[in-house]
């Protein structure tokens, strides 16, 4: 029999505070207690989390299938690279321009979404993913993009000094600096997503997804809602891409995250974490990077358990292991990791929502699903189910 905790009660607030404290502890633990390699991996996870959150807005909450987010990711990275390399900008300032570019391009490329649905929309978004690397390599744009050669040497020459972080230098200092930038971007992305989902725009988006005609009858402006959300999603993705380019110290049109493979990776991350949940993309990104970084290190190692299981392969088992893990996950957790955790947590504790229109701890008329959307794993709102 699970423990019942009322929404807004001291117990509920205690759970929230414990969750917040645990999150902050993990975020602080990584740059202070782990190796630079781990910090870099976690930075990548945060960048991918930001992209997956952005994609989640469009796909999870909006129901619009997008396989073109790699283009926004690449656009952000190239905006940063061109400004830093050709025009001598400081890396940090380019993130704002990447966001603006991402928003404008996102709004423009959302136009097909106003006419198309489902697989047809997916196909047009694939075209965007395929087009981006070709556009970068286009001879007439080489003066700007340096074509297939890419643009190198994009990292901070001198790591900026922030009093709270102290003076940072060397590999560790660079890793810590990029990590905190990624934390800021990921937190902002989370807040933007949370704000949208809880706002009128977010509820309109879900309404359009669930029943477009009913939403229109209720006065929802579909074109405006989808265009704004698409634009914001592209802007968030572009900022993450710009950050990724700085960390990698170079951009190149053939980088996997700038191609269709990247788009598919973003979708995978969102789905394994849990679509239409705020924490799903974050969990998915960390799980993806964790599995991917472990398997790539095993590489040519043919000893131990890896050797016994995959010794028959002539090549590294990295890709195979990654694929198997995700296939198993989809069987075990069809609604993503967050969906699975919610189900498990419901066996221990249940947050009982307040009746509509009340703000106090009045016992609910009917126990059901929690209307909140910011509780990580302990409840499931109708809005969070795919």
């Amino acid at each position: 029999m699970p423990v019942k905790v009322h929404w807004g009660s001291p117990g509920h607030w205690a759970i929230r505070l414990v969750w917040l404290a645990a999150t902050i502890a993990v975020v602080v633990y990584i740059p202070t207690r782990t190796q630079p390699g781990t910090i870099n991996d976690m930075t990548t996870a945060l960048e991918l989390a930001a992209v997956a959150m952005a994609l989640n807005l469009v796909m999870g909450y909006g129901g619009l299938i997008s396989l073109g987010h790699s283009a926004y990711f690449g656009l952000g990275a190239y905006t940063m690279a061109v400004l830093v390399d050709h025009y001598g900008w400081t890396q940090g300032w380019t993130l704002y321009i990447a966001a603006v570019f991402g928003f404008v391009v996102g709004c423009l490329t959302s136009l097909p979404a106003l006419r198309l649905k489902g697989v047809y929309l997916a196909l047009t978004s694939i075209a965007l993913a395929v087009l981006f690397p070709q556009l970068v390599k286009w001879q007439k744009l080489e003066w700007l993009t340096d074509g297939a050669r890419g643009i190198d040497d994009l990292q901070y020459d001198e790591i900026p000094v922030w009093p709270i972080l102290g003076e940072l230098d060397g590999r560790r200092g660079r890793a810590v600096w990029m990590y905190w930038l990624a934390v800021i971007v990921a937190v902002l992305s989370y807040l933007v997503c949370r704000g949208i989902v809880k706002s009128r725009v977010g509820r309109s988006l879900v309404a359009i997804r669930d029943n477009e005609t009913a939403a229109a009858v209720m006065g929802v402006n579909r074109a405006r809602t989808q265009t704004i959300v698409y634009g914001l999603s592209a802007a968030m993705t572009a900022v993450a891409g710009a950050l990724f380019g700085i960390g990698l110290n170079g951009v190149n049109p053939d980088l996997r995250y700038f191609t269709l493979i990247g788009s598919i990776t973003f979708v995978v991350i969102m789905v394994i974490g849990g679509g239409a949940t705020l924490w799903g993309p974050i969990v998915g990104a960390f799980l993806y990077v964790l599995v991917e970084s472990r398997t790539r290190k095993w590489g040519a190692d043919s000893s131990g358990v890896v050797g016994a299981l995959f010794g028959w392969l002539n090549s590294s088992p990295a890709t195979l292991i990654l694929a198997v893990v995700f296939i198993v996950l989809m069987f075990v957790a069809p609604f993503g990791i967050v969906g699975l955790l919610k189900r498990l947590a419901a066996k221990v504790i249940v947050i009982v929502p307040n009746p509509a229109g009340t703000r106090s701890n009045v016992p609910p008329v009917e126990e059901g699903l929690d209307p909140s959307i910011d509780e990580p794993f302990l409840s499931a709102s109708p809005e969070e189910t795919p």
Partner: protein
Amino acid sequence: MTSRSTRVLAVAGASVLAFSVAGLGHAGAGSEEGWTVDTEDCSDPDRANAPIEGTIRIGSSMPLSGGAAAAAFEPAARGLEAYIAYANDNDLVPGYELELTIGDDQYDPALTPGVVNGLIDDGVDVFAGIIGTQNNLAVRDTLNEECIPQLNVLAGDPRFGEVEEYPWTTGLLTSYEYEYGAYAQDIAANFPDSTVGLFYVNSEFGNISIDNFKAAAEEAGLEIVAEETVELGDEAPPQAQVSSLAEEAPEVLVTVPLGAGCISFLNELANAKAANEWEPVVYMTNTCAGSALILGAAGENADGVYTSAAMGLVDVSNPEVAATEPVAGYIAEMEAQGLGDIITTGGAGWNAGEVTVAVLLDALESPDGLTQASIINAARNLDFRPTLLREGMNYSMNGEEDAFYSQDVQVGQYNVADGFYTDIGEIISFESTPAE
């Protein structure tokens, strides 16, 4: 009987190899003179000058899984492992155990920093044989900032010879500047007044290769009349591109495909030749055409392809070469390790391992003993002849004056009936400071 013969051959080969590695190749690189690295700018100068004891941890990042390029390069990893195992078995670095860890970056530069950072955290002392231009560039700043030697880069971009800016990075592949310079010279000498068509993979590798060819072609007075590209990762046969080339019908084709694309290009070219009565002479990057195993997969369609010996290595698919020492010893050792199927494609990795061990030996013999600083000093002053290097060539580097080991190019032509290459002309040397 077979296994006994193999063991006997392996022992014989090992003896010859050990002799060649430990004794024959060196020429006073351990002396105090010559170029020395400045460790003042290192993030941790003490670590760069601290003695390495007991175990030398060697790291690398290579494509071990993934697409067609990974499949083509993966044997290099096994060749590198084979040499390190061989060096340990024969105690080639006395008093030290070599520990090699290769991470899988799937030929994706976005993954290489993750692999390399993880290996640095694990305490790797030196990196060797990282494959790919972008992959190496992605970690070059980090390794130079940390003062960890990035030895024997398996990419031919001339940027891996920037000694002043990146002293801790040394290249092993023949620079594309020399490889394509040699092709341009060969075309001008043997096919004067021919028109040239270009076909290349539209990646950084392909573009830098072709840029170097264009520069050399201009110098040699060659006329380029057609240019076609194929995208990296596009595994469809390049039918449209080859048809476009056929329309222009250049007399010579200079081609830079990659991985499985090498074979599909040759197959498409054969179709176009048959349909258009067009017989171009084909020069192909040694990254794929340097291996008889890869060209062999294209069968008759690879007959007559011109290429060059990658890193100046011998053609182990030539029975005459394979029967002579020390190449026979190499083949015996590879077979003894169960790698008889990759003696051609694994040679690059074996060679990278052998040069790495030679550098370690020189560093060990230096007055400072074995440190990360002495390793890069030894690498930049090396004068060495590896087992698989051709006669008349030598690997020598001399600080900033001479930043590349391999500056000699031997053009060869593949003969499908024999299954190996025939040398064409003399060695073309770009060596700025010939070995003494």
